[in-house]
């Protein structure tokens, strides 16, 4: 892996920034260079949110991207707007619990992850972002599960054991 450019998008409250930040944090722990750039504005629950994450073996110049090795869309407007960003043969992750449409492109690898349903099955739909994160890690290996679990230990330090268990289960739920 030389440089991986990633883009995560959804509506506010789905935890898309959390997916990106976990990958950035884990990659840093693996000794990589990373940038994490969130969209910002008059944000609100239900509004749009996205972030750009770059992971690289060498120092990163531009933290902005116009094409990506991985695009993850958690809602329909994000699919319509950002499907075009995926480089040919690279990855598109679609939250198929929320998005009933299929991707229009056939020159990319699309993974449909029913993240909300899986999370609901685990007891809390809010963990849908962690299901998606697990799917991304499993399919692309951009970071290791070990690093992500290490990040989760830090992120959820002091939280109830049930919260930690839910998120860990969600991380490994997709296959």
């Amino acid at each position, binding site marked *: 892996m030389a440089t991986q450019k990633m883009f995560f998008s959804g509506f506010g409250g789905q935890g898309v920034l959390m997916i990106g*930040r976990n990958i*950035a*944090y884990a990659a*840093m722990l693996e000794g990589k*260079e*990373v*940038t*994490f*750039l*969130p969209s*910002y*504005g*008059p944000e609100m629950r239900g509004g749009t949110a996205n972030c750009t994450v770059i992971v690289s073996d060498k120092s990163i*110049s*531009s*933290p*902005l*991207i*116009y094409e990506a090795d991985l695009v993850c869309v958690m809602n329909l407007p994000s699919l319509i707007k950002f499907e075009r960003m995926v480089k040919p043969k690279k990855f598109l992750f679609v939250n198929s619990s929320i998005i009933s449409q299929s991707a229009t492109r056939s020159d990319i690898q699309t993974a449909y992850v029913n993240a909300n349903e899986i999370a609901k099955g685990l007891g809390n739909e809010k963990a849908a972002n962690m299901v998606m994160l697990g799917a991304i890690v499993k399919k692309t290996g951009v970071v290791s599960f070990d690093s992500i679990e290490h990040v989760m230990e830090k992120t959820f330090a002091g939280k109830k054991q049930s919260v930690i268990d839910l998120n860990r289960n969600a991380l490994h739920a997709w296959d």
Partner: protein
Amino acid sequence: MSERVLMKGNEAFGEAAIRGGCRYYVGYPITPQNELTEFMSREMSKRGGKFVQAESELASINMAYGIAAAGGNVFVSSASPGIALMQEGLSFICSAELPLVALNVSRGGPGIGGIQPGQADYNQVTRGGGNGDYHIPVFAPASIQESIDMLYDAFSLADEWRNPIMILADGMIGQMMEPVTLPEPKIPVSEAEIAIRKPWALSGTKKGNRSVVKSLRMQPNDLEKHVEKLFEKYRQAEKELVKYDTDRIEDAEVVFVSFGTTARIVSEVIDMLTEDGIKAGLIRPISLWPFPEEAFSKLNPKTKVVISAELNMGQMMTDVKAAVCGRFPVRLINRTGGIIPTSLEIYERAKKILGEYR
């Protein structure tokens, strides 16, 4: 060396300032630097400092003026229109020769503008929006680590020069997260030490001598002498505070001049052009005032065009043209209003411009 941590720009500014000796922070919330004010409200009292949320930017800068006069290491931060409101105070503080660190996490303008990143405060910070003859050294970071290093050094630099030091970041650096290494905290200066280290400060009546801090000079002769004295200092600063980076300019046919966030994007553009067999280079001013004119003497005679790339309508281009001094054509690639061009856009525009000179 301490471990790498993932930090957001706005929080890194605060952490670096505290570690660099900041003991007083006065602020008023404004996007895109709100996380900094929030961070300082949480951290300053825990770390032996004082935090004040002022009622306005005008109040912030004048409270800071008072703190600086008393010898405290003080930090103010805001974003573009907020920094505009501080200009009167900055002029007074320069005249009174007081140290202060100011940070502008800039956004789109003019007026209240927008909240997305911008570099349209170049003239505001390098020319000074306040009245009278004065200068403020301005440094522009391109990464979060560089922001940390600048803020860490800024307080001792301000003390040394007895002048405000301005850091010009932008919304992207404020909001972005990158891995950083934090420097060791400096030992705070005690009040007793302030009286010794800063004999000019209004540090109490017990020390014997009387200090006077003022910017009012009614006699034209006095004022002229004072301004000349300030400018001896600025001439020295022009020699000592110049800072810049260059990349591949030795044989470049196209040389970009760009600072901060935009310079990061331009670095990628240079790689893209290099892949096409086009020799491209970058001058990245780190000090915006003093502007690194000396970097331009290193341009090679084969250079065909110099391109100023900035997030405004070409404010830095005035300085670039003065530095190039007619030796090469100077062109502009810009976006404004809060839009940041992608590397692809700059690459395409640069190729078009270069086509006119090849």
